[in-house]
């Protein structure tokens, strides 16, 4: 539970506050930190409000989405692609969507993140800020796959923005929950590009299964790119075999594997048909 709330005057100040306060967390919308049963535990919250991180900018080849942009802003913005709006809508509460931010949701990197699977599948990059050991301010652009792989090491990194490339890429996601606002048993995403001669490249297959975190299925990705997996059924079977799942109150491991594989297979099928991009 937060005992101290620090307001940063600028991004460098935010990084300094983080460095100087043990057990501190970046404080974005607050929907996770303040929530009953939150898995986050911090005594100090460092507010990112007022740092100019709440805008969506068309930068030509990419869209830059500030980390403090709320899920509702994503839905309301004409610059945001449909697949990301779909992800924002998985947060079924209008009120909560006005509070939760894209940065906070991605940084959760947990099985109940609404956006992480789709963002990982999108091959977006993340604009981050950090302080060097000597205290010098630096910014970096990190591929989302790297952030996903090493997100625990990124605990002191401040996520400034998400940069979405405007390339011709399919991204789709599905979320399976008994009710719109209940825990999802599985949330899945698929991203890929179709090149000349129907060559499939840059495949991303991501699944968030309740109790098992977010999984990127690189074996399946490679098999799709190599043409080893070419049909919906092949993909479904491969995903089902590769996924790790546990039995819990949300569903059996068998069900979670099935439904996640079904979802990814559906998305793969859509991709093959040239579905929504």
């Amino acid at each position: 539970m937060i005992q101290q709330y620090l307001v940063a005057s600028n991004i460098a100040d935010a990084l300094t506050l983080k460095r100087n306060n043990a057990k501190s967390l970046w404080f974005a919308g607050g929907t996770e930190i303040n929530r009953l049963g939150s898995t986050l535990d911090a005594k100090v919250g460092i507010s990112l409000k007022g740092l100019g991180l709440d805008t969506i900018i068309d930068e030509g080849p990419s869209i830059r989405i500030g980390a403090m942009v709320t899920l509702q802003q994503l839905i309301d913005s004409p610059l945001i692609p449909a697949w990301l709006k779909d992800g924002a809508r998985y947060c079924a509460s209008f009120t909560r969507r006005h509070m939760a931010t894209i940065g906070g949701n991605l940084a959760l990197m947990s099985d109940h993140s609404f956006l992480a699977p789709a963002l990982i599948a999108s091959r977006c990059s993340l604009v981050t800020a950090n302080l060097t050991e000597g205290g010098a301010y630096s910014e970096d652009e990190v591929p989302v796959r790297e952030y996903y792989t090493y997100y625990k090491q990124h605990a002191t990194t401040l996520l400034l923005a998400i940069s979405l490339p405007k390339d011709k890429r399919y991204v789709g996601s599905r979320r399976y929950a008994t009710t719109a606002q209940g825990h999802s048993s599985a949330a899945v995403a698929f991203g890929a590009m179709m090149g000349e001669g129907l060559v499939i490249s840059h495949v991303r297959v991501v699944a968030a299964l309740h109790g098992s975190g977010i999984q990127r299925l690189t074996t399946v990705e490679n098999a799709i790119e190599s043409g080893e997996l070419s049909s919906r059924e092949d993909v479904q079977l491969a995903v089902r075999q590769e996924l790790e799942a546990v039995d819990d109150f949300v569903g059996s491991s068998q069900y979670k594997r099935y439904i996640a594989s079904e979802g990814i297979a559906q998305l793969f099928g859509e991709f093959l048909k040239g579905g929504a991009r």
Partner: protein
Amino acid sequence: MSRITLFVNKKKHTVEVEDGRTLRSVLVELGYRSVRDSDDGEGFVGSDTVIVDDIPVYANLTLAVQVDGCQIRTAESLGTSRNLNIVQQAMIDSGVVQSAYNAPAAALLLTWLLEHHPQPTREQVKEVLSGLFIRDSGYEQFYTAVQLAVERSASGSYQSEIAPSFRDHLTYVGKAKGKVDGPVLVSGEPAFVEDRVQPGYYSLVVLRSPHAHAYIKKIDISEALKVEGVETIITHENCPDVYYMQAGQSNPEPSPHDRKLLNQKVRHVGDRVAAIVAETEQQALEARDKIRVEYEVLKPIFTVEEAMAEGAPRVHNGVVEYRSGAPSDLDAYNKDADPRDGKVVYMFPLHGDIRRNIASAAYGKIGDVEKGFAEADTVIERTYQTTQIQCTPLEPHICYARIEGGRLVLNASTQVPFHVRRIVGWVCQIPENKIRVIKERVGGGYGSKQDVLVEDLVGYATWITGKPVFYRNTREEEFIANSTRHPMRVTVKMGAKKDGTITAVEMDVRANTGPYGNHCLTVPMNACSKTLPLLAVDNMKFQVITYYSNIAPTGAYQGYGAPKGSYALMTCMAELAKEIGVDYWQMAMKNKVERGYMLEILRGLGEGREGNVVPVGSCGLEESLVRGAEMIEWGKKVEGPSPEWKVGKGFAMIQQGSGLPGLDHGNAWAKLLTDGTFQIFSGGADIGTGLDTVTAKMISEAFCVPLDRVTVTSGDTDSCTFDTGAFASSGTYFAGGASYKAAEDLRKNLLSEAALQMGEDVDDLSLREPGEVYSTKTGAVLSYADLSHTALSGTGRGQVMGTGSFTTLHNSIPYGAHFAQVAVNTRTGEIKVQKFYALQDAGTPINPELALGQLYGAALKSIGHTLYENMILDEEGRCLNPNFTGYQVPMISEVPEDFKAILIDVNDEVGPYGAKSISEIATNGAAPAIATAIHDAVGIWMRSWPFTPEKILKELGKI
């Protein structure tokens, strides 16, 4: 600590706050009490919604320091109860303001919506309400509310119909006139228990058992008592040696007295171990942490099957006593009793056998079922399972008690104020005249507040300490230490001839009552008593056995056992229809009861005694079936939107009761005030359903005066007369019936007084607007004010009053049929309820707009039970999902795409102005209607609720 400035409803507040404090707690401290809490900061229910800098947020998920310098709007900005804004008024008029715990939040959101979108689409309304959990009235009428507000904003008046109107010859009854307590509720003004708590109160917290089944070997409270501010700690060692049960039922109760305030044996995770009273909650919590308990852990049992097994652990193994009807071998029976288990005291025999974990049992039959099965061409036997369901009232169980003038006064959120008084008096061993129970507005009960779950402990703590004590369940405690729906296993054997005539039915109900026997007879009995009488079948037999176990407690829940019995009986009938090749709807039409059919089956379905055999009275069953079939186009196949989506249709016949004939009792009294206005005192407990409005209408109709000239006082044990309480669908029928009689008595007495004062014959006098006595013979007129003044001027005959007492042996059964059209995805197991039509005969709906709201609310609740909701325990008995996100309740996203509630117009011969009950029955249709629709869609029979996608996929052979 930080010093922050908040601009709340344009008023500047500068306050010092701890950085971790939520915005809600600060707002409440500043006096903005409309910002309520239903989920302990889960960010789910939305009772804590406020607008910050023109953006809706949850105040419980927002730190006060986060909004330093911001503009904040709460519901207090909208309007007061005497000056409502257009949205607040439209909400009342449309019928959505019922228990209303988060009605202020809804009003705030909809006002905000209309400010941004003066002509919002249905989708925009749905979106803005998506973060608000409405359990009482469903969501459908919110669209009407918005439409009304839009119309009134544009033209100054409503154009749309609010609700259908009934009985043209009546002015108030059968007309949408608004809820009399609606203005206070929608504006967020003080109305609930928490609003009555005065500074200086003591906090009570409960130490709960981590084990499902254990003896307390040792409990050490010495360190806890040393914590500053601790007033007392109550344990099994120092609590009264009084056995009772928490079900608020008729006395003597058809439930065993099988508990004390705190017991040496804990019987579920969450059972009471100690109660700590301290000056502050923090002190009480600190003391709780210092209590040391040593347990002897026992093997728990969780299912009916485990409870039935040979050699199963005994949940209760104490001494059994009977207040009457003790068996001759009782001494021998008690030889094995363990004194640590305490006692089980039966008021009268319920066929219990605690050594076999049987809390109660009942048996009965008509005709000869074996002969009936022999006559059948086809006989099937099917078993259906239901799971444990939580009531989830938005206002948790709560109580505030203090000593006033040497008496114990409790402000309670209860359905049964008079049973609270009796049970608290019994626990404290003080007479009823020393206790006053004031039922406040109830922020949702749904049965769980029929049980005296917190008032017993708070009342006792107050009585022994003399301190004012406040207690409120956390949301987790609502799940683990509250009344829930009994899980049941219902086996139905049914036989029929080839033409669809049912020749025999046998029901075997095995219910799981959990640790204590609250309603252990009545709830499971309802699985039979509210379903079998739907069928005109000569041969019927039932067996109901209820078992103790170590699951979280069960008890009353809207519908009692009827939703489970209905699910089993109707689905089995559909299975049999399929088996013999007869259309299910035709089979229902062929076997349903109709007016005049003698309900012999009721003889064996009394609650602990022989029931009354009566004929079917007013009955809208056939019309419900016929109109419903037309609406849903029964028999017409519908294609899904894509090949994997299959569409099917289903329905169920339903019934309930209107209170309990021969058991329930309503009383009321009324008086004419000196200015010609009226006050009526009803024992009935309005739990948000509109009972106070029913009561007021009894006076308005009788005396031709508008509702604002009638004041209702209800549920106060000091000023009101006894009423059995708001359960078993008795409110309108019994409490309303008593109010009707009180109004009639007052009318008779007023006319008598008028005849005397006017020098006329009573027979020549009539009452008319705007509140006067008129002589049809002479044309003389006497206003009520003048009449009352003269009667009380020192020479008159005193205050004009009337009393009413309502009892009956008549069974005014409400009937109906619910129809569903579902789409089932054969690849994912998802189910979409595309259409849900709830058609019900409520007699004369006295408040038609509120009746519709109750119908929508109950139907949506039962859709939730059918498809989503389930309390899940681990192998140790711990609830794994004691919160809304994990438990999964239906919200606006889950509302059927086409959702209609239809009131079938049937006038009852006994109920007040022809009224019968409305809401409980509406929980009985969804499970069988959806189960049969799923079968129609994909050919599988769902025999275990909830029908989750995982279960669908299993039945389809996908996993």
